[in-house]
């Protein structure tokens, strides 16, 4: 057997072995990167899921949360979560989602409480991210629940242990993507000529005229 033929056979054997030995996705290793240590993972792995995976040990109550909220959050989100300027509204908005002016808050819109913990913990306060301790984060989340009347007891304390017992009211109203939800070409071949008799302008942007001035944008 020639050298190249031997190489081909051994390559074939090798690849067959790979196919038989690989469970799900097992591919060639490039030998790059290094193992992450448990300490490194613990420090960076901050995400929290609806089932509670990722929640840190800790607890915090409504009253403590109110103090932290008024100091760290209220300047943007308002004393009662009503929002200041264009900063997000955190509370209220019940029964508005099917109206002309939907108000999407944690109480009216968000499906999962874990999202509040995850987001506050990773991104808030705006410009000073990851500065709250786990206890402080639990407390702020508890206060936001209180602002939304999802908990009514001022003595309520949120903790890793009771976290997943709290459900947000709008969870059931999220549905899967239904697109494509308009006609495809095979259903409606587009018209090319004499498609309509009359055309009228029904709306003009210049009437609203909210286009930024180029000089102002500079």
């Amino acid at each position, binding site marked *: 057997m020639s050298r190249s033929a031997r190489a081909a056979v051994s390559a074939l054997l090798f690849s067959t072995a790979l196919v038989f030995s690989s469970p799900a996705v097992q591919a060639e290793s490039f030998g790059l990167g290094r193992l*992450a240590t448990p300490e490194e993972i613990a420090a960076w*792995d901050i995400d929290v899921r609806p089932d509670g995976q990722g929640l840190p040990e800790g607890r915090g109550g409504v009253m403590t949360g109110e103090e932290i909220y008024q100091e760290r959050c209220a300047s943007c989100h308002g004393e009662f979560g009503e929002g200041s300027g264009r900063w997000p509204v955190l509370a209220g908005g019940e029964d508005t*989602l099917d109206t002309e002016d939907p108000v999407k808050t944690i109480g009216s819109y968000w499906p999962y409480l874990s999202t509040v913990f995850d*987001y506050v913990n990773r991104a808030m306060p705006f410009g000073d991210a990851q500065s709250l301790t786990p206890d402080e984060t639990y407390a702020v989340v508890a206060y936001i629940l209180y602002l939304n009347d999802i908990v009514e007891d001022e003595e309520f304390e949120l903790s890793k242990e009771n976290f997943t017992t709290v459900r947000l009211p709008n969870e059931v109203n999220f*549905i899967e993507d239904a697109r494509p*939800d308009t006609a*495809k070409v095979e259903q409606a071949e587009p018209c090319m000529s004499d498609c309509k008799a009359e*055309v009228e302008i029904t709306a003009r942007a210049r009437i609203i005229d909210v286009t930024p001035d180029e000089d102002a944008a500079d």
Partner: protein
Amino acid sequence: MSETGSSKGRTTRRGFLTGAAAVGGSLAATGLVRPAMAESDPENQPPNVADWSKYLGEGVDARPYGTPSEYESHVVRRNVAWLTASPESSVNFTPLHELDGIITPNGLCFERHHSGIAEVVPSDFRLMINGLVDKPLIFTMEDIKRFPRTNKVYFLECAANSGMEWRGAQLNGCQFTHGMIHCVMYTGVPLKHILEEAGLKTNAKWIMPEGGDASGMNRSIPLEKALDDCMLAFAMNGEALRPEQGYPLRLVVPGWEGNMWVKWLRRIEVGDEPWHAREETSKYTDLMEDGRARRFTWAMDCKSVVTNPSPQAPLLHKGRNVLSGLAWSGRGTVDRVDITLDGGKNWRHARIDGPSFDKSVHRFYYEFDWNGEPLLVQSRAIDSTGYLQPTKNELRAVRGTNSIYHNNGIQTWHVRENGEVENVEIS
């Protein structure tokens, strides 16, 4: 060349604008059009010989990193200040009406930040892969660049592009109505290589990329997509990513909404369920008329827009004109673009010119003669899946007007007798 709008019998932008102002209010004063070109000087024109043809120009060291001509200084990204609470959590827009071809120059790619631009020191950059993997790993940028590379042209469109137009025509300019898109060539590593290096557990179904900026941007992406065509990109258009586009490393999620293309990547967790992060629950979910909301609406549907003429780029000449625009689909390539000049009574095929890459923008042209009559200009695109770009009213009939995201409806521009263009809706 046909002549219009100038007492000198020669069409200049200034002449046109003067005419436009006389007819229907000053476009220049409302800031809708490009600044006038530099004053034209007969001394530079035949039969005279211009200074630049006589005297030495700057040497090679004058511009170590080249920038556009001073006469193009108006070609910049612009924001709409009233849209957002602060510039650190905001967006600006690509000047589509000033660009051609399919590639967006790096400095003009629209920006969307949630906590400002992270200034990552590349030597301190680390990417962690953890979760449902055999070996949790940490990579440096040098490690990433030792994996096999690939080059791909993809568009990136914000899911909220055209989102201000759900309730009706609002912004005068395709930069503002359609400018949350850019298209560049990425160089990077297939995400598959990185995930396989860590070894995926058999129950792995989702990944969660996380940004290293102060918003820690995180999204859930199905593993199938991650292994299919996602990339970790370190270069755009041949050079390192710009800081505002995620330097030194960003995720590329071809055809899917821009928010998922996490910038300044610091970690990818592998899991068995989605995370339901803030940006896939509170935001980037599509509120329907009945109060329910669609979630995980990832793909960007087929869409097109005429970039010239448009409100910032009026028609300057009677006679011969080039209509130009962009079409794209997050589900494949664009097969066909049709153009109407009469508000949809009659349509013609536009000419797609240049490369037709998967999940990339396509450039189209339609050459026509303009006799000065008002026009109602639209484009409609059909992609390789047979999807037909819908009208805005067809979208509203299905989704209402509260959904903010995924407005890919047909855009109408009204060209007036004086060449001025406005954003309108028609019957």
